[in-house]
C-alpha cells in the first residue's frame, strides 16, 4: 500500500483509477470476491484480464484445451509462442504478470470434474464455453449449486450476454430449440472485437452481482456492425431473480 493513496488507505494504489466509478468500499468488496471462469478462449481470456485489472481477488479459470493456430485471431491469451500449450497455464502466467495480487487457480481439465461445493465456493460463474451441450451441462450444474451464471456467446459481429439466476432456467430456455451443438458461428466465425466486447459486457454485468446490488437478469443482444443493442428476454421477478 502506498502513502500516495489519499482516498482510502485500504485501497491499493494500483486500483486508484477504479475509484470514482467504484467506491473504496466497493473496491474492497471486489478484492474479497471469487469468480469461476469456465472456458479460457476468446471470451474467457478477455474476461479474466478485466476481472484481474478490476481487482477481483480470486479467480479460478478452467479449460481443458491447448492453443492452436485458429485461436490467434481473437484469443487474448494465445500467442505464436504458446501454440500447443495449456490455456489455463497461459492464463496463470498472464495474470501473474499483470496483477500478482489476484489469487488465480488454473485448472486444465473439463469443468465437470469440479464438485458442487467447489462451484458454490465461487460467488459467480462465467460461462465462456463454445458449444451448446457443454453450456447446458454447466447450467444444470450451477442450478444444482445455486450459483448465478453470467453467460456470453458470440457469432461474427453479434453477441449475447445473459445474467442467469440459478432458478431461472434461462440458459435452458435460450437453447431450447437448438438442434445442433453449435450456433450461427459455424457460418459467421468469431471476431476479436465481438469477443472483447462480449467478455467486457459480461464483466460489467458481473460487478453489481459481486457487490450484492440489483443486476439486469435476462438476455441481451448486440450487433457491432449495426451499432445496435437490445434486450429481448427478461427474467421475470419471482423466477429466481434475487437481484431485481
Amino acid at each position, binding site marked *: 500500500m502506498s502513502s500516495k493513496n489519499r482516498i482510502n488507505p485500504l485501497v491499493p494504489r494500483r486500483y486508484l483509477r477504479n475509484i470514482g466509478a467504484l467506491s473504496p468500499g466497493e473496491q474492497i468488496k471486489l478484492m474479497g470476491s471469487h469468480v469461476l471462469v469456465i472456458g479460457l478462449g*476468446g471470451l474467457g481470456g478477455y474476461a479474466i484480464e478485466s476481472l484481474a485489472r478490476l481487482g477481483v481477488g480470486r479467480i479460478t479459470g478452467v479449460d481443458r484445451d491447448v492453443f492452436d493456430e485458429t485461436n490467434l485471431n481473437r484469443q487474448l491469451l494465445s500467442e505464436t509462442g504458446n501454440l500447443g500449450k495449456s490455456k489455463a497455464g497461459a492464463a496463470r502466467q498472464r495474470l501473474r504478470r499483470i496483477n500478482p495480487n489476484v489469487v488465480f487457480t488454473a485448472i486444465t481439465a473439463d469443468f465437470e470434474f469440479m464438485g458442487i461445493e467447489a462451484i458454490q465456493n465461487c460467488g459467480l460463474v462465467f460461462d465462456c464455453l463454445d458449444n451448446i451441450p457443454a453450456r447446458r451441462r454447466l447450467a444444470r450444474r450451477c442450478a444444482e449449486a445455486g450459483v448465478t451464471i453470467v453467460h456470453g456467446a458470440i457469432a461474427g459481429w453479434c453477441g*449475447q450476454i445473459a445474467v442467469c439466476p440459478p432458478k431461472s432456467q434461462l440458459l435452458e430456455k435460450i*437453447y431450447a430449440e437448438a438442434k445442433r451443438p453449435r*450456433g450461427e458461428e459455424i457460418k459467421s466465425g468469431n471476431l476479436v472485437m465481438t469477443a472483447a466486447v462480449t467478455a467486457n459486457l459480461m464483466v460489467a454485468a458481473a460487478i453489481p452481482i459481486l457487490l450484492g446490488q440489483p443486476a439486469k437478469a435476462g438476455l441481451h*443482444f448486440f450487433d457491432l456492425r449495426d451499432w445496435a443493442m437490445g434486450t*429481448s*428476454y427478461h427474467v421475470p421477478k419471482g423466477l429466481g431473480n434475487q437481484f431485481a
Partner: protein
Amino acid sequence: MKIQVVLIGQFIPRLGFSEKAVKVPAPFTAGDLAARLGLGEVDKVISKNGQGIAGGEPLKDGDRVVIAPIFSGG
C-alpha cells in the same frame, strides 16, 4: 391482427428488415410466424414481449416478437 417482429443478427440481411409489423390471421402461434418468415426450420430463440416462448405459444394483436439466431461461440 398485427404482430411487431424484431430480428437479430444474420436474420436481418436474410429477411431484409430489422423490425416491422406483420399482419397475420388469428389464431396464430410463434411457430406459425417463424414459418411465415421462412425461419421455421432454423435454430432460433423467440421471445414475446420480453419473455422466452416456445413455438406453440399463441400470439395476440400487438405482441412484440423478437427472433434471434442461436449464438454459442466463445
